[in-house]
């Protein structure tokens, strides 16, 4: 592997990310294979260059490779991507962003007074339009001012999903606590009850955090794809750290709760 300067490395990473984004939807092309070929091409083209290779030298090679958007003919993309491309590259490049924002405004202003179902349907449609627009843009920073049109439904939907994911273990715990209330007969004082309950809640939240982190690890790059554009900078090591923290919190809290329950109540 040829050594690149820091700015050249960033430039290459950006370029490969763009290439991946454009090739991803093509039915006839193996995106991983093309990416590997492009990397080999760059290595061959820079053979003999002084290392670390400067950004100027790398950019000259990338310029000859050309814009990845031109590599795959439009007719080879799936129908939905062609549709989105036409919407986005028509006379008004912001069309999809406007559609998304209009649906969102309609959801907030009109539908929320009419029915929750219509509100949910419009926000979902707005969310899908935003995701479609973003799928055509490899880097979220390229969205610039379009963010203001595209982000509101994404924040609402992701916020809702995040809320459900965080509240879910609490709801389960409440249900379980009600079911097994009699098992905690030993807990006479209010302090005892709250201490043990708090330990159980923290342990369960730690375990749940661990499960979420493990899911993110298993999904790998699909986690990034799932949470675009907010997870563009996501790295697997974050999930690993969260997994370790979650398990640590679960074990520590469970031990504290168990010790308190066994010896102090």
């Amino acid at each position, binding site marked *: 592997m040829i050594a690149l300067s820091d700015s050249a490395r960033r430039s290459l990473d950006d370029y490969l990310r763009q*290439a991946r984004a454009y*090739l991803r939807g*093509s039915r*006839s*092309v*193996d995106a991983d*294979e*093309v990416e*590997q*070929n*492009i990397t*080999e*091409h760059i*290595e*061959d*083209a820079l*053979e003999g260059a002084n290392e670390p290779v400067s950004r100027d030298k790398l950019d000259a090679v990338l310029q*000859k*490779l*050309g*814009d*990845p958007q*031109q*590599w*795959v*003919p439009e007719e*080879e993309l799936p129908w939905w991507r062609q549709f989105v491309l036409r919407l986005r590259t028509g006379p008004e490049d912001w069309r999809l962003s406007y559609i998304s924002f209009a649906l969102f405004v309609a959801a907030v202003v009109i539908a929320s007074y009419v029915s929750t179902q219509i509100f949910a349907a419009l926000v979902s449609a707005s969310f899908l339009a935003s995701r479609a627009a973003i799928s055509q843009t490899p880097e979220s920073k390229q969205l610039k001012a379009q963010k203001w049109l595209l982000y509101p439904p994404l924040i609402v939907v992701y916020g809702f999903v995040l809320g459900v994911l965080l509240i879910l273990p609490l709801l389960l715990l409440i249900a379980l606590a009600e079911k097994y209330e009699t098992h905690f007969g030993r807990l006479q004082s209010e302090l005892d009850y709250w201490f043990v309950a708090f330990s159980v809640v923290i342990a369960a939240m730690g375990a749940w955090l661990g499960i979420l982190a493990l899911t993110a690890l298993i999904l790998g790059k699909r986690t990034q794809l799932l949470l675009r554009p907010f997870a563009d900078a996501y790295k697997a090591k974050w999930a690993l750290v969260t997994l370790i923290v979650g398990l640590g919190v679960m074990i520590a809290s469970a031990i504290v709760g168990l010790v308190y329950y066994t010896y102090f109540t």
Partner: protein
Amino acid sequence: MNAKFFDNWTNQVRKGMLELCILNDIRNRKMYGYEIVRRLRKIEGLIISEGAIYPILSRLKRQGFVETSIQESAEGPARKYYELTEQGREMVSRMNDYWRAISGVTDSIEKG
């Protein structure tokens, strides 16, 4: 307006020609990706963006016209070589015949 028409037309011709040139290029011996690019870039006006070769190679592979093999290189890392399959040889022969026929007819029309 004329320039745009010409650009559109050359784009269409180039697309088909690039596939034909790639297949012909690896007809007699296996080559690695950058080697194919280096040879084809000598043909003026054929390649606008060199990266476009790789999706074509990937597609030709998926269609069964080319196959790849990894070979160690004396100068550097192992390289992926492309070569025609039997199906690819038949296809390139048909494409060459078609191209010769079209080219001949175009010449005769041009000469009147």
